[in-house]
């Protein structure tokens, strides 16, 4: 494979400091890029390597000298002589609170990174009290914008609700959704252009939804699974993975990953087969692949059954 050759004028470099360390990055780079450059780890949740940043989660905030508020590292561009602090008291406090606020309202059990970050920032989501009962199916979606019943404050409200299982290919467990907007952007104009899902409702009651909360088979969804590819929390999950987790047989440690080329058509998308005990359990796609950037169609994503069918013959 040949490496792509950069064309166009080389980009000007801008110089900034990250925690006192001087760093030079091409103009237009984000603070996150600069942090990577100097090897400073910044937690991210809503940032997606294949998507335009929405800077919604605020877990990546950093302190920029002279700025009134903290700024999101994932989207703020580096400017000349910018001075960035990634571990100040203010930064640590806001990151801790974001983790606690999310942890107390969302089921983060399948979100990678959380245990480590909670420890790093001393985040204790249980401080907000016992969790409220999950809402019955459909109740959250039916709430009207700008209205809620004030509770007694004795339980921390959450977004938890039953998992939506309405098709054979993937499930939507919005009790795990942190509202990163990534699935919506992947389904919409940034990748798939199908626009099957959007953000509906407002405030704490907002959520990802099809129009009128229709079941996926009645919606515009084409089951490309590109939303699953970008979901950082496991809210969107292969039905196979979901069922194995329910049965307690999901065993990521004992899975192998093989990247190969999809056999269905001539585009030549790369597919990564996740295999446990000689069974394909889910399919992802490498985000750095120049052809697909992690995107597939229904065939590459879900059309692998024939491979295992042979075995049972």
């Amino acid at each position, binding site marked *: 494979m040949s490496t792509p050759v950069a064309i166009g004028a080389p980009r000007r470099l801008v110089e900034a400091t990250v925690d006192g360390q001087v760093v030079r990055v091409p103009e237009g780079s984000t603070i996150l890029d600069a942090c990577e450059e100097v090897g400073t780890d910044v937690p991210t949740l809503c940032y997606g390597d294949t998507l335009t940043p*929405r*800077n*919604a*989660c*605020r*877990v990546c*905030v950093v302190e920029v000298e002279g700025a009134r*508020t*903290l700024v*999101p590292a994932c*989207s703020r561009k580096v400017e000349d002589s910018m001075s960035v602090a990634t571990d100040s008291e*203010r930064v640590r*406090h*806001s990151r801790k*609170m*974001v983790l606690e*606020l*999310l942890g*107390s*309202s969302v089921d983060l059990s399948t979100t990678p990174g959380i245990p480590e970050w909670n420890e790093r920032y001393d985040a204790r989501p249980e*401080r*907000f*009290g016992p969790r409220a009962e999950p809402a019955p199916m459909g109740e959250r979606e*039916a709430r*009207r*914008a*700008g*209205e*809620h019943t*004030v*509770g*007694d*404050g*004795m339980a*921390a*409200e959450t977004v938890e609700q039953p998992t939506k299982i309405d098709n054979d290919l993937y499930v939507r467990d919005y009790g795990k959704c*942190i*509202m990163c907007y990534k699935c919506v952007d992947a389904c*919409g104009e940034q990748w798939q*252009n199908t*626009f*099957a*899902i*959007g*953000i*509906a*409702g*407002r*405030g*704490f*009651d*907002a959520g990802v*939804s*099809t*129009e*009128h909360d229709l079941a996926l088979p009645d*919606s*515009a969804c084409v089951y490309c699974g590109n939303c699953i590819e970008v979901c950082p929390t496991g809210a969107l999950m292969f039905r196979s993975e979901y069922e194995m987790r329910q049965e307690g047989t999901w065993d990521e440690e004992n899975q192998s990953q093989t990247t190969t080329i999809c056999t269905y058509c001539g585009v030549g998308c790369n597919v990564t087969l996740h295999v446990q005990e000689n069974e394909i359990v889910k399919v992802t796609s490498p985000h750095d692949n120049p052809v697909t950037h992690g995107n597939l169609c229904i065939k590459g994503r879900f059309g692998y059954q024939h491979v295992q069918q042979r075995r049972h013959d």
Partner: protein
Amino acid sequence: MDLHFLDAVPEDAEREAVDAVLGPPDSGWDGGTRQASDLRFAEGGHVARGRRDLLLPALHAVNDRVGWISQAALDYICRRLTIPPAEAYGVATFYAMFSLKQRPRRVVHVCTDIACAAKDSASLCAQLTERVGEPGSEDGEFTWHESPCLGLCERAPAAVSLQAGDPPRYSVAAPANVDDIVPAPGEVPAAEASAAASANGHGASGNGHGPSLDGDRPQRRTTFSPETLPGPAPEPPPHAAVPQAGDPDLVLLRRIGVVDPTSLDDYRANGGYAALREALRLGSAGVIREVSDSGLVGRGGAAFPTGRKWDGTAKRPETPRYVICNADESEPGTFKDRVLMEGDPFSVIEALTIAGYANNAAMGYIYIRGEYPRALWLLENAIELARARNLLGTDILGTGFDFDIEIRRGAGAYICGEETAIFNSIEGLRGEPRSKPPFPVERGVFGKPTAINNVETLVNVLPIVLQGGPAYASIGTGRSTGPKLFCVSGAVERPGVYEVPFGADLRELMEMCGGVGTGSDGRERVPRAVLLGGAAGGFVRGDELDIPLTFEGARDAGATLGSGVILVLDESVDLTAILVRIAAFFRDESCGQCVPCRVGTVRQEEALVRLSQGTGARRTDLALLREVGDAMRDASICGLGQTAWNAVESAIDRLGAFGPQEEPTL
């Protein structure tokens, strides 16, 4: 784009309402009847998508006509504009005034916000619940909701009734009592009222002003019928909210109560449009120079220098540029913009025209909150009359300057007063704030340079152009130049909008309002606390009345003027209940984009409920509030989250709302 639609067929009324906004469909491609010729070509696409900004008006049209937005109606709108239904659904569900479920034609919004809570809106709600059921119950002839501030605080408690139909009608009850709000049996038509009964009748109307019928004016098209719904007593005229009305020393409120707000002739007879002529004489750069010299800063809350904003916008190379009048006025306790728009609507139109001229803008928008039917009606009337006299349109006053104004009506979302949320709302997207930079001056509505200003800010431009910037700057103090409007409500004798030159202190203003007066028991009332700047502002104690009402003075006192709210609470008010209401407000109005605000406002409310009921560990909850508050202030995307803890913090620290402060320990 290959969109997926439902097969539901809209009712005739739904289709008519949408077509009235979008015009009839051209072909089967954009929602019309499919014909053989449609098979030969494809159309829609870019052209239709370019009209995405008509989504919000189309949703309003259906909601206004039938009272709710059915699946079929939403689908039809989507076909007409090539909008994915999931996106349109996301937009429709963002706004409190729209319903995606069938409901009665009449919806009553009963304010339970701070000023109304202080005037016992709770018992109004209790009576309503007893007579007709819980808020939101939809089995009767009408439905009611508890509402955030309706901008009628001087006449608290307030209620606004809206009734769908052709045309839709409204009424305002303030102060409201339950008999005014509950319609008589059979009063609300189950089906659409016949057109004849509610024709856009230009008769006597109950809203304080019969439309004047001078001249052979074209038939007006206004959203709401000028004939208000039966029930409450006629709404007092706009100048009833201005105790100083008629005082010749007034600048901004000069014409209120003096001119007929429906008459362009009367406006001109009282000095109207002299400023536009002067501006056209000065030239764009000249106007911006006067505005810069005047020292005018924004009255919408952020106090940004207007001259600098305009200079930045006018200098941008990109075209077209836009100007926007921010008339969303939803900060609890604020009603000055309503009074300006209702009492002197032409001044808003004239000022925005001058802004358009100075910024070299192609178009102006007035973004007005959805719960201001009378102001909407008067502005629509004013724009139409100004167009007819070539004060808007092409070649204005023969100078070659082209400019027009469109009104966009919000639909129940406080966040849509935030400048970048307005852009999204106008563009037909969810009203979520954008992250800054880029700032509106560079990339505003439709991605083009935009100057957005508050109604009061704009109206200040008229005297600036007429007197000159330096003369204007001589009014007031230091960095706070010019006259300022204050919205006084709560425990004062004469609540209303007051105009004072910057420099007066809180005590002087309270004296102008007749002081706090005596309570129902005949005893002298004691001001316990004053909320300055609205829910996003903060409390000061009743014994801190020496605070100068200037931007610097307020800041030095650790307070803020915000949008000019002065809401006085006396000893009779349950302060902790007010704090829970403020927390509930922010929770309801958070757009939901960012975690600190979306979840932080929920945790803030929960902790305040525990504190007010004495059910939690006090010290832990106070510390928790502070921690959540600090993160909301520091890490939220926009001003809503950043200020959501201001009032609560000031109540704890300044008023000692939950007892004496101790070092928080965790």
